[in-house]
């Protein structure tokens, strides 16, 4: 015991003596993270870039074919359609999910008991896997035996998954149903962290609930909005499971988003070279989007929302 205390004191003294120099940790500290990143992120990326220059069926050795996959990529009408659908899903998801989850998150941040109970109910979809969600909704959306057959006033005679706009709307709604709870949870935590004094000061100045929401809550949630939107963008660009299970890219190729197109090219038609070209493009798109998002929002300047408090 005594030696332990002595050791701890010694360590603290050393730490204290080192403190004034305020040196950043050496490069060695980054080695484990860097190693992990290199093996599991950089190496596959380099591999995919290399494969995109080859023709490979997975059985024989890859044949180097130069830029032929890329010239095919640039003239492929399906790429254009897939990119457009990916974009539509992305924007649809953000437009539907962001407002709902902000409102729900802020509302559930209140400490009333009924809110706690209702929040627990709202968060239920978060517990279900995407596969279970997709299978359930596919049954619910069956045109002959599901909701559309019984709610003709809402669906008309149409089958929701049978047209492009309908299928995209279904994908947005099912994804939102599943992920709004997650984003609400982010906002709930952030809303609870807003200092009570801000609201008290605003109330003294005569600001009502709506005004408080727009002038205190929303600005204070700025960083959370960036986090949440980044999740939505990156998640939206790589969302694949729900498309595979709910629409399988259909009707036709109307909901074949880029990740689905990549999957189908690689694992259904065994054209790994072309699939790698699509994957590289997707990588570029996702990196670009997240860089753009952090630049536009000023997230990279690392400013807090509590400055001056």
């Amino acid at each position, binding site marked *: 015991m005594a030696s332990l205390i002595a050791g701890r004191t010694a360590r603290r003294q050393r730490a204290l003596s080192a403190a004034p120099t305020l040196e950043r940790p050496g*490069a*060695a500290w*980054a*080695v484990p993270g*860097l*190693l992990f990143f*290199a*093996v599991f992120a*950089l*190496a*596959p990326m*380099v*591999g995919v870039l*290399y*494969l995109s220059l080859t023709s*490979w*069926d*997975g*059985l*024989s*050795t*890859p044949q180097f074919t130069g830029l032929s996959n890329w010239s*095919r990529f640039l003239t492929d009408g399906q790429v254009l359609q897939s990119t457009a659908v990916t974009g539509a899903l992305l924007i649809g998801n953000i437009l539907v999910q962001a407002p709902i989850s902000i409102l729900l998150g802020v509302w559930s941040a209140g400490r009333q008991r009924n809110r706690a109970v209702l929040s627990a109910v709202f968060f239920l979809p978060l517990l279900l896997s995407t596969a279970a969600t997709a299978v359930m909704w*596919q*049954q619910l*959306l*069956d*045109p*002959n*035996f599901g909701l*559309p057959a019984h709610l003709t006033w809402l669906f008309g*005679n*149409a*089958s*929701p*998954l*049978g*047209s492009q706009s309908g299928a995209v709307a279904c994908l947005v709604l099912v994804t939102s149903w599943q992920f709004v709870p997650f984003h609400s949870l982010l906002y709930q935590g952030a809303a609870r962290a807003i200092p009570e004094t801000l609201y008290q000061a605003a109330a003294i100045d005569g600001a009502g609930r709506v005004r408080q929401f727009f002038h205190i809550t929303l600005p204070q949630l700025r960083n959370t909005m960036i986090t949440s939107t980044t999740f939505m963008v990156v998640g939206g660009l790589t969302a694949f499971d729900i498309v595979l299970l709910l*629409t*399988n*890219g*259909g*009707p*036709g*190729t*109307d909901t074949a988003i880029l990740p689905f197109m990549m999957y*189908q090219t690689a*694992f*259904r*038609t*065994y*054209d790994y070279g072309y699939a790698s070209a699509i994957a590289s493009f997707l990588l570029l798109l996702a990196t670009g989007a997240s860089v753009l998002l952090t630049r536009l929002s000023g997230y990279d300047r690392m400013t807090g929302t509590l400055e001056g408090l």
Partner: protein
Amino acid sequence: MMNSASRKALTAFVVCSALLAAGCGSSGGGSSASSPTGNVQFWTLQDPTNTVQQAQVDAFNTAGTGKVTMSVISTDGFKDKVRTAMGSSQMPGIFFNWGGGSLNDYVKAGKLVSLDPSIFSSHFLPAALQAGTVNGKLVGIPARGTQPVFLFYDKKVFADAGVQPPKTWADLTNLVQVFTNKGITPFALAGSATSSWTELMWIEYLVDRLAGPELFKKIAAGDWSQWNDPAILKTAEMVQQLVAGGAFGKNFASVNYGAGGSSTLLAKGKAAMQLMGSWEYATQQAADPNFAKNDLGYVAFPSVDGGQGNPADVVGNPTNYLSVTTAAAKTTAVDFLKTTWSDAYVQGLVAKGEVPVTDNAKAALTKAPDPAYAEFQYNLVATAPAFTQSWDQALGLTLGTPLLTEIQKLFNGQSSPQQFVSGVLAIKH
């Protein structure tokens, strides 16, 4: 700030990992067996007939030349698993497959053993051996029941309307009128992207009835320009007319096959007919045994007036196959394949509801769960001048997947018949 030493280290990491990634691509080919007898790894698909196969393996192991070890692999991912293993040292000796185009790549890559037709051909129906032959080499031996495609209908709905199942195309178009007027969907069709293979069945039959089996044979053999044949355009136009006439109802584009989908439409009397493979009987039986027993009728696909194809031709899955790879001890593997026409194995398959394609199957069919249904299928296949394998299986996934997409667009009205033809032609670069 990063100092120069750590920057060098980072560069080293990147280079090393790039080399690693490149190395992954060129892993060695499969091991090849040196001795003719020995242990053979046998991969099969998980289904109700596994017990019959296990009995077959056990019987072989007590008497045969060498040992066979059977591994049962679940349906989901079976093809992917085989594909991955075929490029590696973990290659199985014998594996279950769908014949035709699914074996194309393996034959090209030299992974399969070419078998001697003189040993096998006398024991099977000729139509079934055809899809086991790739590039003129016999590489697949029939090992399961046959699964032809034909028309299923609801006897009760037909009796209520006072009509008979169709024998000709004129009958069929007339029935479409009769049932749409009564508010019943003439044909249940699963047109969602997951189930578009059910739409392919219509194309397969129409092309066969219009042009005969030779046209698709040429396409499967590699002559993709044959899609320009007028019979293909005519087929697409007939499909377009059916869809426009309400033959499949309005919302088939989002219907799935199976429980809760197109089969339920038939069972509930909401649809009159469904073009489907022979497994439909089992699907209906699982969902509603009474309907399957009393009201489920079946007939061959009707003839098409003026077409060159023989109305007795059949399409579907001739059967499933076993193939031998270069990793197997060849004598042991071939000896094991000879047990696929043993009486015990054939009778075991029949008891499970399968209709084997061996020459001694007919006698065993009296013991089938539904002998009339089993004999209907056997006779359909045995008397068929040609049994065209399902196109997606015959072409392989590389060409089959985009073909299914084009067919879906045609049924959905997203492509005109002309666009369908040019869309399919554009698949092969």
